[in-house]
């Protein structure tokens, strides 16, 4: 068996590591645009950022179908998720509870994921957008619940038209997907309530 075929370990201390990671996620989504870090040291499988991998270990299980880009689904990341979370990996973006996308890739569009329905807006997909960096890019101004006044974020490596898609997603409120931008061990939440005031 080659090293590539081995499934990397998950949490070494699941109870406390998932608790710490969850609090970072809770802070990220309740205070959109603040940079949160997962402090857990895990070796993520190829194709997943530490933050993405930690978040999925914390939240995904047999109740939550996960959508991954095809290359990841058929690679070590897919095997890793199946083994540690027991999560079903689905082909159809709209049937996923959690999804991981590459921020620079053109597809799938955010509108391809499940926005929930008017009686159950909580059934929408949470999308982890892996991007090149969470700081140092073009500034975007956010407002909405969780933000006193406005807050500026500057992630890098997002496809052209990304902010327009986020705006369209926000217009569906109370429906819509919730986004978590991930890079390295950093996370930046963009729930559907967040309004894009100004994007450059």
């Amino acid at each position, binding site marked *: 068996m080659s090293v590539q075929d081995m499934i990397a370990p998950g949490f070494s201390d699941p109870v406390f590591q998932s608790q710490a990671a969850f609090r970072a996620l809770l802070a990220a989504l309740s205070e959109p645009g603040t940079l949160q870090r997962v402090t857990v040291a895990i070796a993520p499988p190829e194709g997943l950022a530490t933050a993405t991998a930690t978040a999925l270990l914390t939240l995904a299980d047999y109740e939550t179908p996960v959508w991954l880009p095809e290359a990841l689904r058929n690679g070590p990341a897919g095997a890793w998720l199946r083994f540690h979370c027991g999560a079903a990996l689905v082909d159809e973006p709209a049937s996923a509870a959690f999804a991981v996308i590459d921020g620079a890739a053109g597809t799938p569009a955010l509108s391809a994921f499940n926005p929930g329905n008017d009686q159950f807006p909580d059934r929408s997909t949470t999308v982890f957008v892996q991007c090149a960096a969470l700081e140092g890019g073009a500034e975007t101004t956010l407002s909405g619940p969780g933000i006193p006044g406005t807050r500026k974020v500057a992630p890098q490596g997002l496809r052209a038209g990304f902010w327009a898609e986020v705006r369209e997603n926000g217009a569906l409120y*109370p429906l819509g997907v919730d986004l978590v931008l991930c890079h390295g061990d950093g996370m930046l939440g963009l729930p559907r309530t967040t309004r894009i005031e100004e994007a450059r």
Partner: protein
Amino acid sequence: MTIHKAPAEDTKPAYNYAYLDEQTKRMIRRALLKAVAVPGYQVPFGSREMPLARGWGTGGIQVTAAIIGPADTLKVIDQGADDTTNAVSIRKFFERTADARTSEVTDEATIIQTRHRIPEAPLKSGQIMVYQVPTPEPLRRLEPREAETRKMHAWAEYGLMQVKLYEDIARYGEITKTYDYPVMVNGRYVMAPSPIPKFDNPKMHMSPALQLFGAGREKRIYALPPYTSVRSLDFEDHPFRIQSWTEPCGLCGAADSYLDEVVIDDRGGRMFVCSDSHYCETRRAEGHRGTMLGDAALSGLVEETTP
């Protein structure tokens, strides 16, 4: 005949950290994240049996169990007081199952689980309020069918609630709801703030703390992220008003806190005291004296303590 074998001496009942198993915590955590993303919307969740009866704060306990960690300091209040039965037993529960650090000081706590009050001391960014909610559905008294109230929320059809408030005004001249006063969250969902007095409603608006609501019996979780608009429903010509009292707290002299009326004899004697016990104690320690505060040391009932 069944013979019950006594467990061996070294067998101790063991629980997972914070009582709940990890799959339950994951399920509650997912519900919490969606609740934060749609402020005021009630997310259904699989409420578990807890080692106390439903209606005693099982929703709040499950939320606290899903978020608490070794870095947290927990404060539990019941009707504002740290030393009432429900507060004491919930605090003990987390001391035993989660080895939690507990405190009565509002300022030191990172998680404040509460029944029926918001502390008087202003909340800070980074703190999490956990409310125990008996009836999460603000429309339930008006429409008993869940299928219907769900549609009313889906389509923001809140006319019935306004009619109910109007009928109060028509009949009594004012809105008579004094606790669990309905609020509009982020301009979209009508939410039950749990049975806090309407005195506390303004504290929810744009609060720097994260507020989480758990209803165990009704199996609902909802949330208010920090800095979220929370408007108490009212009318232009009948604006929302909070309670006021004609006299200050009998023990600490506070005129700005929520007061409980205490009957002290059978001849109509009564006194008003702060419902927030920690706030009242802090003020007395600062030297504030109310008119009814008996000086126990002077009358020789207790030994004077040197500060």
